């Protein structure tokens, strides 16, 4: 009886507070919030460009809330992955993106879903912006059949429409991205390809080969260097003779962008997209950003940089905090509203994690499938001559 009363009172109390909040929010939505504001953004350093992106960016309330939600979802998803990895539910490689959210969200805000994107292995956030769900991303990390690649790819090999992964070999994705851009130009649909790589990859020879061909053939390719200051454990000063990554394209125009400010990233991406779509050829963007985690889950991330440095970035330049402060100080959202988004995001992540830990692993008869596309079923040799496994497309 007491238990029942407790339950009933909890329910009533809960609905009461919820009702209260709803009343407060809906009253404020209609009258009080600023629907749109203009913000000053940092000027981009330019290379072989007469002018750069605008110095001001407009942000609507809806956009702001959507960016906030997406960045928060990314942040919580990566932190949950951290947790699951430490519990050994995620295994192998796991490269986390927290700290860099403004890049992924800002880039997507500057292009269309019909455009194309390819990146390296720190790819969970891009899988999300390109149409993947948190559920399928997390289930891929835990290697379950509900994963976006049915458990066969893992952290570094997630794909969606117009998103070509997720690539494990440093730098290899850059020629691939230019190839996608070549297809865009060839098929004449006014689409472009965003091709991402890190400060570590920026020294790869194949990237310079790609700059050359992309420029020669005027491919609609936005090369983006996500400079998070460290290639694994090697700081940029120790790896690159020139750390002006936005200039490394030489004959390719470039801009250096504050990668912690989502509006800066968005405006720069829009600018770059316009450049490509007008047929001028490739362009290069360096996003100055920072990762809170180490290179991967096996790297504590403090042997080559100080905790103070990490803390300073977190307190002064966190992309989510920056957006939140902007919106709150311009009366574009309420604290409660943002908190509500936080709660919803947390729930979504919890649900996804629940799914990712309870969904069964892929069935063994999926082992040899997906070798060839559009192929009649074939036999694959197992571990011994008597084991013949079935493979279908």
């Amino acid at each position, binding site marked *: 009886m007491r238990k029942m009363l407790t339950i009933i009172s909890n329910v009533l109390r809960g609905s009461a507070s919820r009702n209260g909040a709803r009343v407060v929010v809906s009253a404020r939505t209609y009258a009080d919030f600023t629907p749109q504001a203009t913000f000053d953004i940092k000027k981009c350093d330019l290379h072989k460009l007469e002018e750069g992106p605008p110095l001001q960016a407009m942000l609507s309330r809806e956009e702001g809330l959507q960016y906030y939600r997406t960045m928060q979802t990314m942040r919580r998803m990566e932190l949950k992955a951290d947790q699951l990895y430490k519990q050994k539910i995620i295994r192998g490689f796991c490269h986390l993106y927290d700290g860099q959210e403004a890049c992924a969200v800002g880039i997507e805000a500057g292009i269309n879903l019909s455009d194309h994107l390819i990146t390296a292995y720190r790819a969970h956030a891009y899988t999300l912006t390109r149409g993947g769900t948190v559920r399928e991303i997390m289930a891929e990390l835990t290697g379950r059949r509900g994963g976006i690649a049915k458990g066969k790819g893992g952290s570094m090999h997630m794909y969606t429409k117009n998103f*070509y992964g997720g690539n494990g070999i440093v730098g*290899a994705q850059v*020629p*691939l991205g*230019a*190839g996608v851009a*070549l297809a865009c130009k060839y098929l004449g649909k006014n689409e472009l390809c965003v091709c991402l790589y890190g400060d570590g990859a920026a020294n790869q020879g194949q990237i310079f080969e790609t700059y*050359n*061909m992309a420029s020669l053939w005027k491919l609609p390719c936005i090369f983006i260097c996500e400079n998070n200051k460290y290639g694994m454990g090697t700081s940029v000063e120790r790896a690159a003779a020139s750390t002006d990554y936005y200039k490394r394209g030489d004959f390719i125009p470039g801009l250096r962008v504050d990668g912690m400010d989502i509006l800066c990233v968005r405006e720069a991406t829009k600018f770059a997209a316009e450049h490509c779509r007008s047929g001028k050829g490739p362009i290069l963007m360096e996003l100055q950003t920072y990762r809170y985690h180490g290179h991967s889950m096996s790297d504590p991330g403090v042997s080559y940089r100080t905790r103070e440095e990490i803390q300073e970035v977190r307190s002064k330049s966190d992309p989510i905090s920056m957006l939140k402060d902007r919106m709150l100080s311009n009366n574009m959202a309420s604290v409660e509203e943002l908190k509500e988004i936080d709660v919803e995001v947390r729930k979504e992540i919890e649900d996804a994690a629940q799914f990712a830990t309870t969904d069964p692993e892929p069935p063994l008869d999926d082992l040899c499938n997906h070798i060839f596309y559009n192929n009649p079923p074939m036999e694959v040799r197992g571990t011994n001559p008597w084991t013949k496994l079935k493979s279908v497309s």
Partner: protein
Amino acid sequence: MASLRCFLRSGKNAVSAVLRREFHRTSPAAVQVTVRDALNQAMDEELERDERVFLLGEEVAQYDGAYKISRGLWKKYGDKRIIDTPITEMGFAGIAVGAAMAGLRPICEFMTFNFSMQAIDQVINSAAKTYYMSAGLQPVPIVFRGPNGASAGVAAQHSQCFAAWYSHCPGLKVVSPWSAEDAKGLLKSAIRDDNPVVFLENELMYGVPFEMSEEAQSKDFIIPIGKAKIERQGNHVTLVSHSRMVSLCLDAAAVLAKEGIECEVINMRTIRPLDAEAIETSIMKTNHLITVEGGWPQFGVGAEILGRIMEGPAFNYLDAPAVRVTGVDIPMPYAKILEDNSIPQIKDIIFSVKKTLNV
């Protein structure tokens, strides 16, 4: 005894010469086509058939192809579809793979497969494995083609055979044509295949003419990937080979036939997937197996065939251990006498056959 054998041999020659004069060797509608022209035709027809097909590589456009395989194509199809690349294999192979991922059907030419080593990461990690890693979301319909293996006097860095290297990897199909019909039918199949195909040509075969049947001249003529062809029927020993070595096997078979040894010569056509069944069926008839390849012996094509035969039903039909005839296990030397002795010659095949048959 030797002179008697000699007389008999020449007599047999005389008879067959007479017979040859009576019957036409080529049927009326068949023509003589070189391997080069066959490859050219295949690409021309497929470029015409499907707008998404395009060719890229060094010197493929304005130079008409380093070995003239793409002669005339740039004039006909223009810059959009026949693309000259800078000398940057890793870059342009990656670009080709990316284009395939985004919906085009590239033919990526390596001037020789030796240069493909610079790009091998793109072939294996970006092309071969992607369909699997994406669990069927992302196919890669691309053809990598070019001359493979030994040529003449080009020395060690330009003479390696990559059949074994590429055939090692799941996710790739590896094709090695011999005749003009092979070249045309298999290249068309490769281009129409929705998966990455490594197409190993042979520079020394480019200029060799073959009879091409009327059927093979049709624009829809394709040869399925994965099926070997018996080029010559025989009862005593099975010779399994691919590419240029098929010619040597046939020549050796012709010589051995005069001594009453009938070789069955199998032209593999495809290295991966390997048509083990064709080889097994043949062994069940001849009871003897010899593989012949131009590549190095260790971990090579022959090694794989022998392993499979050991593990399969044909083992019980072998009357002698299966053996391999291969290139010598050294980097290719330059001097002609050394080079000639670095790859299998007809006499090596004959010698191996006789050792196997214990005659």
